[in-house]
């Protein structure tokens, strides 16, 4: 339990140096992104995710 708390704290501390930007380009139509999504869909459609990822 203590270890988990320690790791959680470390992770929260680790995210403090990203700056937010607002003019985000939409990459959803980028061929690379489309290709990656299609590739992942083939795997997920055929094999699905393990129940450990779906339920909890």
């Amino acid at each position, binding site marked *: 339990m203590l270890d988990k708390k320690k790791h*959680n704290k470390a992770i929260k501390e680790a*995210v403090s140096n*990203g700056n937010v930007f607002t003019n985000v380009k939409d*990459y959803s139509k980028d061929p690379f992104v489309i290709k*990656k*999504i299609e590739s*992942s869909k083939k795997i997920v459609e055929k094999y699905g995710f393990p129940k*450990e990822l779906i339920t909890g």
Partner: protein
Amino acid sequence: MNLDHYAYLMSEDFLSYHFCSEGPNGKIRKVILFTLVTMPSKSYYNLSFGDLDEEGKINDFVTSNNHDAEKVLATVARAVIVFTNNYPDAVVFAEGSTASRTRRYQMGINKFWNEIEPVFKVFGFVKSEGFKPFRSGMNYMAFAVKRKKM
């Protein structure tokens, strides 16, 4: 996981991350994206990672050779942490564009397994078998991760 990583810019919704790799081949702009994919059985976020070319398109087949692979990988890991801090129930799917890049992801997971395992559920995809709990020494084609409930 306090690894040396690049400073990055992220979008307000925590779905896009931009940073610059710096090395012998100069500055190379890189982007990490988490894209929601909705399936009938389960929605998930696909992780895309690549270089931005001069036209602003993503290219993940370029070999940067900037001698900073570990720092770049640490930045991707950081993005996964930030993203899942804000989307704690999300399943993230990651697949390298080539077998060697997928292997690099795997080496990174192996190297920092003691830090990753308490925080993330990690599954590796094996062709014809599906997703299996990540084990050191196995070769995987893709990965699916989710934050553990604390």
